[in-house]
């Protein structure tokens, strides 16, 4: 074994499982590609349930369409933060440093920035300088743009995957890491909502491109997909929504499944 191999064996950091809650009008909802939203329940109750199941973190995505209603999420985050003591990430509609401050004050530990990072990359730098990298997550939505047989290439999309930016996903990931992002939340727009599993090639390419943790997202349909995101995609964490919301699997089952494949996870009694 090389010194590096020895050092890596001497690494007890677990891979994280992060349930994602889409929130609008004070409720958790679930839909495919932002349409056909179905009510999935009360945010605080759901957060508590996932915490009891051993979720490592929770991500709240505010999918409210209008900016007028954005602040509806603040009391939700406050209520969750009073009762659930694991890291909370909030994203959706974050436009300026003031939005970040409000979410952190309400009890978010990390804030995820997506479209605003594309339109104004210096926001990420300012936010990381001011609040620290540990609370700045850059969410990147990527879509495969290479044809079959070509070298793989992915492009960054914004506005829920509708708007092309012309930005290469790997370059973008490196740039955001340089700008001070503490973590990247990587969603494959091709896979999101399909239950066909992560785009593992994309996940691996981004995870290998940056020195910061990458959370894989988009496409989880079963527990093997979660394990693959870590072992084949090399993600530090895996995020999923529907498989947990509808009670198909508990977080605990997901962890036991991953542990059985030799993945280090935090198992709670």
């Amino acid at each position: 074994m090389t010194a590096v191999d020895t050092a890596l064996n001497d690494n007890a950091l677990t891979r994280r499982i992060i349930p994602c809650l889409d929130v609008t009008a004070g409720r958790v909802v679930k839909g495919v590609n932002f349409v056909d939203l179905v009510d999935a329940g009360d945010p605080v109750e759901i957060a508590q349930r996932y915490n009891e199941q051993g979720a490592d973190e929770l991500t709240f995505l505010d999918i409210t369409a209008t900016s007028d209603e954005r602040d509806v999420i603040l009391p939700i985050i406050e209520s969750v933060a009073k009762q659930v003591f694991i890291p909370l990430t909030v994203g959706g509609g974050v436009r300026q440093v003031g939005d970040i401050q409000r979410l952190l004050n309400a009890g978010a530990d990390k804030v995820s920035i997506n479209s605003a990072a594309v339109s104004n990359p210096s926001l990420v730098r300012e936010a990381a300088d001011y609040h620290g990298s540990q609370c700045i997550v850059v969410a990147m939505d990527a879509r495969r743009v290479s044809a079959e047989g070509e070298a793989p290439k992915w492009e960054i999309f914004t506005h829920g995957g509708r708007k092309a930016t012309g930005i290469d996903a790997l370059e973008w990931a490196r740039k955001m890491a340089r700008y001070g992002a503490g973590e990247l939340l990587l969603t494959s727009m091709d896979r999101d909502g399909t239950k066909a599993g992560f785009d593992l090639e994309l996940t691996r390419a981004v995870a290998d491109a940056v020195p910061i943790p990458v959370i894989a997202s988009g496409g989880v349909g079963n527990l093997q997909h979660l394990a693959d995101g870590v072992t084949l995609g090399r993600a530090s964490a895996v995020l999923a929504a529907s498989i947990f919301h509808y009670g198909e699997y508990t977080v605990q089952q997901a962890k036991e499944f991953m542990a059985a494949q030799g993945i280090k996870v935090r198992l709670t009694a």
Partner: protein
Amino acid sequence: MNTIAIVDYGMGNFHSVARALQAAAPNADIQICRKAQDIDRASRVVFPGQGAMRDCMRTLEVSGLREAVLRAARNKPLLGVCVGEQMLFTVSEEGDVPCLDIFPGVVKRFAGPQFASNDTPSQERELLKVPHMGWNQVEQQRPHPLWAGIPDKTHFYFVHSYYAAPADESLTVGVSHYGLRFTCAVAAANIFAVQFHPEKSASPGLRLYRNFVDWNP
């Protein structure tokens, strides 16, 4: 009255520390303190911190709370959290910033081949990400009242790129492994300090806060 002062010098995670203390010890009087006299009056003190070391030390100085923290460290139960732990040491490599020097030692960055930048990834090896972010096991090095009810090798939540390396190994009460073995909890007399975030570590974290509230060194 058991009053607990959370030192608010303008940086960091004092709100989430306050929420966790409230949940862990509903009967305690928890105060977020911006004045030295409030810290002086409290029966115990929590010293959190988050963000860049230079900013933390500077704002601690500017807030006028530095001396109050040093006074508390002499005779009251004091709990340092994250950068609040690191600040207790002599100096930080993060910008070569002098710290409070209550404990001899240097705050170092995770570095070495296992942390090398992975622009040219090898197929065989996985390079370690910095920050060290997530849940890691804490190996208790010796019994301590703040470990009461918390099993050895319990997972706690970490997020940091630097760690304190005490010059005196006997200060270490907890270690973790991330590429290397590093100290993640220190204790001496009336001081206990942790690199991880008990306020984000679910029930074991709340237990640690509860233990701190009950601690009579």
